[in-house]
């Protein structure tokens, strides 16, 4: 009986994983196809399409996306931590309302937000910031709720006795923030920042309104390309950006991963 249950358990896991990864497998397979038409399960393999990735057509948008995502991750990381600190740790009056306000961008569809930002910029006569500055600002608005929420949750779980212990040991507020509070909420903040990076890097609905012609982010470049052609280069671009995102997640895990410290071990 138990055996059967165990088998079913693992079967369920395998099915879910297959369900999640099969579309990705299709893309990977297509990117390796020697025929210029997109096919699944090609009988021969080639990596020739990946050579195209270094062309300016893909490299420039990729670099722009990385640049914007990095800045967005940094800004929303700092703002998110500050907001969560004020609301949760300092218990500002009206903190529930403030938190609701900070999370409100989540409730507006991105397309609507994109249109709204373009309209807003043209009304106040700032069409000039379209392109990188507008993209960064818009992506921060989009990513901030995630970072704030993650930081707030970490702070809410933070044991106040740690803070009191540090205080009784003579640590000033700034010292406690630096040595106790921030290190303790680091894992939560880092996962929030990772989300911010990915949200910005992958964004289409907002970016599509805000890019300047000829200076686009990678997802917009992909959209533009898809309008005219569907070939294995496309698949190669997607596989490469997937690998890039996975690497980013892995690196953030490494930096924030003090699971070893929290679960024992020594230095």
């Amino acid at each position, binding site marked *: 009986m138990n055996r059967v249950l165990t088998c079913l358990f693992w079967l369920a896991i395998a099915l879910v994983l297959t369900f999640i990864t099969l579309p990705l497998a299709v893309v990977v397979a297509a990117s390796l196809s020697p025929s210029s038409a997109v096919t699944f399960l090609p009988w021969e393999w080639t990596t020739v399409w990946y050579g195209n990735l270094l062309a300016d057509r893909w490299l420039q948008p990729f670099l722009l996306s990385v640049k914007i995502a990095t800045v967005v991750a940094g800004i929303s990381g700092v703002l998110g931590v500050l907001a969560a600190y004020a609301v949760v740790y300092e218990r500002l009056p009206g903190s529930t309302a403030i938190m609701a306000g900070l999370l409100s961008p989540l409730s507006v569809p991105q397309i609507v937000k994109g249109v709204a930002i373009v309209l807003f910029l043209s009304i106040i006569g700032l069409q000039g910031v379209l392109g990188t500055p507008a993209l960064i600002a818009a992506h921060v608005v989009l990513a901030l709720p995630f970072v704030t929420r993650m930081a707030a949750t970490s702070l809410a779980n933070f044991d106040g006795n740690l803070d009191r*212990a540090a205080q*009784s*040991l003579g640590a000033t507020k700034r010292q406690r923030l630096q040595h106790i509070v921030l290190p303790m909420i680091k894992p939560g903040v880092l996962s929030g920042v990772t989300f911010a990076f990915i949200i910005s890097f992958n964004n289409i609905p907002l970016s599509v309104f805000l890019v300047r012609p000829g200076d686009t982010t990678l997802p917009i470049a992909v959209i533009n390309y898809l309008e005219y052609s569907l070939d294995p280069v496309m698949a190669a671009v997607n596989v490469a950006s997937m690998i890039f995102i996975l690497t980013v997640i892995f690196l953030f895990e490494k930096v924030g991963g003090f699971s070893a*410290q929290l679960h*024992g*071990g020594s*230095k």
Partner: protein
Amino acid sequence: MNSFDIELVSVSKSFAGIPVVQDLNLQIPRGEFVSILGPSGCGKTTTLNMIAGFNTPSSGDVRVRGKSQNRIPPERRNLGLVFQNYALFPHMTVAENVGFGLRMRGTPKAEIGKAVDAALRSVRLDGFGSRYPKALSGGQQQRVALARAIAPKPSVLLLDEPLSNLDLKLREAMRIELKEIQEQLDMTFVYVTHDQEEAMAMSDRIVVMWQGAIAQQGEPASIYRNPATRFVADFVGRSNILSVRRSIPGPTFLELCIDGTQIVLRSDCAGNNAVQSCCIRPESIALLNGSDSGTGPQNRLDGVVRRIVNLGAHVELLVEVATGLSLMVLVPSSRSSLVPELASTVTLGIDPQDVQVLSD
């Protein structure tokens, strides 16, 4: 300059209009081990937090070495603090934890190293410096917390139920260790606990708190022997508490008529007509042989053994001495020949000095 490390001068504290501590006056001399003992909700932790500076008194004054602390934030009070849940910094090694206080003060590295080693040695954890707290047992973690608190050499150490999370054997061992460390460092310890045995075992002085006020304070033995109120008699140790209908001051004794019975007990206590209750510790009641007479204790009561409970070292008897009145009697197991049969009749002897008059 006086010799009190800590003084509370008519300190009161209320939260949202509800009084938690009321007009508390307490003086703690330098180098003393003082326990604040009381049930949960008696205001003992609030009192400790006011000394530490995490709570501000609603009125009154907290003084450390004669200096008012009301406007001084916790980080500048130079008091060590030990918590029930250890509150070790999980992202720092044991050595980093212990050195934290000195590091925040900008002490030179070499000095910190020495102080950390000394502190770890005094809690017998030398060699554990490079480990992380989660790799240690509960008892070891609490000793790290203790080392962390004493490393910056605070004037006073405040301990908030530090042993409550440990198991019984370890708790008993740690009691002795804590007392030894306190004597070695000659530091003032203020120890908050709800465990009366713990308070008895370690303290130079016990402050029993109830409903936000001090119910009684004194040396452990005198609190146990002479509880002043019904609450203290009940909370500290086990006792037979009897309601008194009427008390008659005699030439040398106070005669207490026990409510609802014909029993009259003599007590050595001074008292008046208003005595409401009295207390007799179960171990101070003697089982008398029939032949025993005259010279022995002056209160003699006959009763029937209704229940016998073996507690290991002791046997507890419940003896019905009158309708509706039973006394708990504790007999050492080593004198098992004295333990009577169930339902047998026994004579109890109670020395008048063991009948303690209580006030409410």
